[in-house]
């Protein structure tokens, strides 16, 4: 049995390094990466980065817990959403309270742990910025 989510909150970069040392396949780091996180992820040699914030930022989903692990509404602790898929109270409040979160179907996922540092709301702009920030970081490394 895997450990319950609340007992397995190891940070992305610690976890990625542990996995990288034990597998031969490329590792994809995901969750809370954002622009500045790309060089960090590259330094632990993951090979790729999954930017959930790109999705949540573009859709404008934010939650009361932005900047923290997703909690009961995230896939991480999906086990806490039991038997009948209904929105958790936070999601309903958020949808009603004019928050930008999108209440869809009968399940709403919180994402966007990196949203506090997210500056872009359009995917094109975000992609360009991610690449530029990583480029700038490596250029600085060479000049140092």
């Amino acid at each position: 049995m895997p450990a319950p989510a609340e007992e397995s909150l190891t940070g992305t970069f610690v976890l990625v390094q542990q996995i990288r040392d034990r597998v031969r396949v490329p590792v994809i780091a995901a969750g809370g990466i954002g622009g500045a996180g790309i060089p960090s992820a590259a330094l632990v040699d993951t090979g790729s980065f999954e930017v959930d914030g790109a999705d949540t930022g573009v859709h404008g989903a934010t939650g009361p817990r932005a900047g923290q692990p997703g909690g009961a509404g995230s896939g991480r602790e999906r086990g806490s959403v039991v038997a009948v898929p209904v929105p958790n109270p936070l999601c309903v409040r958020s949808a009603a309270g004019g928050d930008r979160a999108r209440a869809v179907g009968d399940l709403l996922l919180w994402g966007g742990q990196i949203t506090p540092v997210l500056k872009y709301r359009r995917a094109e702009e975000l992609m360009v910025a991610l690449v530029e920030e990583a480029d700038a970081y490596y250029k600085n490394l060479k000049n140092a």
Partner: protein
Amino acid sequence: MWYETRIAKLLGSTYPILQGPFGGNLSTVKLAATVSNAGGVGGYGCYRLAPAEIAKIDAELKRATDKPYNLNLWVSNSDVPEHGVTDAAYERVKELFRPYFEEAGLAFPEKPVTPPMRFEDQVQVVLDVMPAVFSFVFGVPAADVLEECRRRRRNR
């Protein structure tokens, strides 16, 4: 360059940047195609889609981008018990969540219709349309499904 990595080469993208493929109708063709066209790997979460809907989304993605994109499925894709949700369980949850729906002025969702989507049916479509990337979460597909992925990739 920093972006010339094993996985970028494997997936055929310029940058090793993947857009998270949210399921539950949160994905859009426009977002996925935009990311792919910008050199990343756009993703579309398909776990709530019927097989025919997955084929339709894939056709739209193919029209919107000629770059690699990712279709995502949940292997274990529902918490609904095998024989469906009992009326008693539904009423229990309804009672619990009623105040929130009342406050929000929202109609309470109907009891979920069973059966939920079957991963086995969904993945068959993914195999047929062969996106550059098929990703999965909440479990590992059967060995024969993974072998079929490799076989079809070799024969592309």
